């Protein structure tokens, strides 16, 4: 199993107990009085049968607080998910923190920083890098939104197949126009699981496909990931408290549906809330307000005891791997880890969701390692206090470099960077003045030359291909 990082320090507190209760009560009030619009007949019937107040004309469902509380209590707080190989299994929940690959629509040229559609090879190579990176534990919905030559409808399904073929790490499975009914059959063919995605459209609306996907994934035995994205000041109130209430209502409503479909189903929620850029209307990626939002969200969901993920953390408005990219990605991600989020989207993305690159993912992996090291905290024991050793070494000319204690402990205590430029100035001059980005580019080549993911056997690969063909046929017919 992947250990990820275990947070040994207390989670960050940005809300008082009273404030957490207020957000929860306001969520219940919105769910009870305004409700959610659920554009899915099957879900409406299920909710109706379970004593929710359903208006079939407007598709509005109002949720009685006691049903909400019951459903929240049914979701497990900790669970395992099975990968294709045992060492990539994960256990989600509690104090464990994993990092997950985030998406970019297209790839980006590392010299001009202009974006373009990736080739199939570039898509597959990215996944080889994903498989190799030690601090990247799970794969998101996509590395890129498809590659050259794919019909629009097949971009997501072919991406799911590409992930299954090129990495043994657990993937999120998104959907498009009914694809979930086919792609949900892929992982069972490989003897493993994926995490199914269902998302809310803010404000307060679930559309048909998303709920259909929830039914399919849950009935296929997958854990379900319910996420909601909104722009504060656009599709959510502009205040952090108000956008916490709408986002919370959207997620809680989703959890209720999931737990009614199958009580006890493994559930994780995802926060994707940004402030609006009031000059352009776009989400304000990398904004500190998003970090404050996710910290508040984490606190509320800790109360519910349901595992959490965030997507706002790994996003930057920067178009290139520069200083802004570094701080916009690292600061919210550090806050997410401190706040006790279980799964943090981080690696790979640039320019909001517009672009991504495996070299950026390599840079990010170094930061993930640093953050992971921090949250594991300080080990204080008789051995680490090293009083006997200090007495033995004493003042100058004593030193600790030659001691066995140092050899045993330094690697555990320090995070050893793989990418950052930490060499001395004369060495830097001699080695061609390389930056962290240059080092990451070299690492990329090294990974592609040396890392070999565990591939599918011929039968497995054929099974995946057959499912893709069936789906392609379905789209041609429809």
């Amino acid at each position, binding site marked *: 199993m992947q250990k990820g990082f275990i947070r040994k320090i207390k989670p960050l507190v940005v809300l008082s107990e009273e404030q957490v209760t207020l957000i929860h009560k306001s969520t219940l009030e919105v769910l009870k009085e305004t409700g959610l619009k659920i*554009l899915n007949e099957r879900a409406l019937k299920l909710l109706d049968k379970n004593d929710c107040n359903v208006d079939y004309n407007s598709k509005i469902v109002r949720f009685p607080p006691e049903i909400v509380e019951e459903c929240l209590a049914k979701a497990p707080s900790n669970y395992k998910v099975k990968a294709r190989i045992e060492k990539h299994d994960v256990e989600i929940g509690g104090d464990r923190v994993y990092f997950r690959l985030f998406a970019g*629509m297209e790839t980006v040229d590392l010299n001009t920083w202009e974006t373009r559609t990736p080739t199939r090879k570039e898509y597959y190579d990215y996944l080889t890098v994903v498989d190799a990176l030690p601090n990247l534990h799970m794969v998101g919905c996509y590395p890129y*939104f*498809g590659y050259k030559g794919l019909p*629009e*409808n097949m*971009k*997501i399904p072919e991406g799911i197949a590409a992930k299954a073929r090129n990495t043994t790490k657990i993937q999120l499975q998104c959907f*498009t*126009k009914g694809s979930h009914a086919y792609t949900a059959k892929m992982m069972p063919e490989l003897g493993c699981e994926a995490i199914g995605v269902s998302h809310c*459209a*803010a404000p307060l*609306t679930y*559309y048909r496909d998303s709920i259909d996907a929830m039914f399919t994934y849950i009935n296929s035995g997958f854990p379900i990931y319910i996420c909601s994205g909104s*722009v504060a*000041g*656009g*599709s959510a109130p*502009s205040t952090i408290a108000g956008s916490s209430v709408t986002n919370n209502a959207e997620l809680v409503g989703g959890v209720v549906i999931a737990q009614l479909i199958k009580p006890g189903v493994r559930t994780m929620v995802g926060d994707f809330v940004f402030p*609006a850029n*009031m*000059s*352009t*209307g*776009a989400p304000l990626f990398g904004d500190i307000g998003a970090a404050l939002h996710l910290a508040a969200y984490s606190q509320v969901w800790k109360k519910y005891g349901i595992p959490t993920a965030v997507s706002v953390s790994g996003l930057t408005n920067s178009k290139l791997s520069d200083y802004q990219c570094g701080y916009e990605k690292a600061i919210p991600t550090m806050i997410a880890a401190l706040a006790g989020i279980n799964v943090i989207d981080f690696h790979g993305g640039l320019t909001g*969701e517009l672009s991504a690159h495996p070299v950026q993912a390599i840079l990010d992996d170094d930061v993930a390692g640093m953050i992971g090291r921090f949250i594991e905290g300080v080990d204080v024991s008789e051995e680490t206090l090293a009083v006997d050793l200090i007495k033995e070494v004493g003042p100058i000319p004593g030193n600790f470099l030659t001691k066995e204690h140092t050899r045993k402990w330094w690697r555990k205590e320090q995070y050893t960077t793989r990418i950052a430029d930490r060499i001395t100035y004369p060495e830097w001059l001699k080695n061609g003045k390389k930056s962290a980005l240059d080092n990451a580019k070299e690492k990329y080549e090294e990974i592609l030359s040396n890392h070999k993911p565990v591939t599918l056997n011929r039968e497995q690969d054929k099974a995946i291909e057959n499912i893709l063909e069936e789906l392609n046929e379905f789209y041609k017919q429809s």
Partner: protein
Amino acid sequence: MEDNKSGRDLSEFQKDLLNDLKKSIKTYDRNMAARTVDKIIENKMDPMVAMNAMTETIRIIGEGFEKGEYFLPDLAGAADAMNGALPPLEKKIKENGRKVENQGKIVIGTVLGDIHDIGKTMVSTLLKAAGFTVFDIGIDIKAEVFVNALKEHDADILAMSALLTTTAPEMEKVISLIKEENLRDKIKIIIGGGAINQEFADKIGADGYDPTAPGAAKLAKKLIGK
């Protein structure tokens, strides 16, 4: 300028009313705008003078937005206040047998299969603030509904939105139907949304694309040549 010319003939009370109208737009006060316009009509002032005062105020706010002094909520607030005052004013202008001047008529909506509303609404608001008459026909809109709305409103521009890569191709279907109905030559088509880029816009034969809401309003002005 018509308002300046007419302005010289106004009484102090009438000037105060116009200043109140401008203030209502600047302070995003829809009720005040509506009340003031009612008084302007009661006092038998030229409705075109009031209309020009509002347009001028919106233009100043728009310029402030360009300079980074005003932001989207300001533009939306000003447009909302103006919309509160428009119906009685337009009615009066028509009663007087005159034509309401505007930048042009735009039908806007999110394509079939896509229920994302906010980007489209933001563009719609900014287009109104830029002086266009906007018919926002909503989300999840079929090609036939777009075409019917274009005909019904005798529109100059069609603006389509799609957030998803899977719904964006629907735009091409709408454009095909517009061609079938022989409307393509008289309508400019602009598109936007998360899934859209210039390459896609060129591919499907749209007249323009812009990644931002303020950019969409500028694009519409450029295309319509006013």
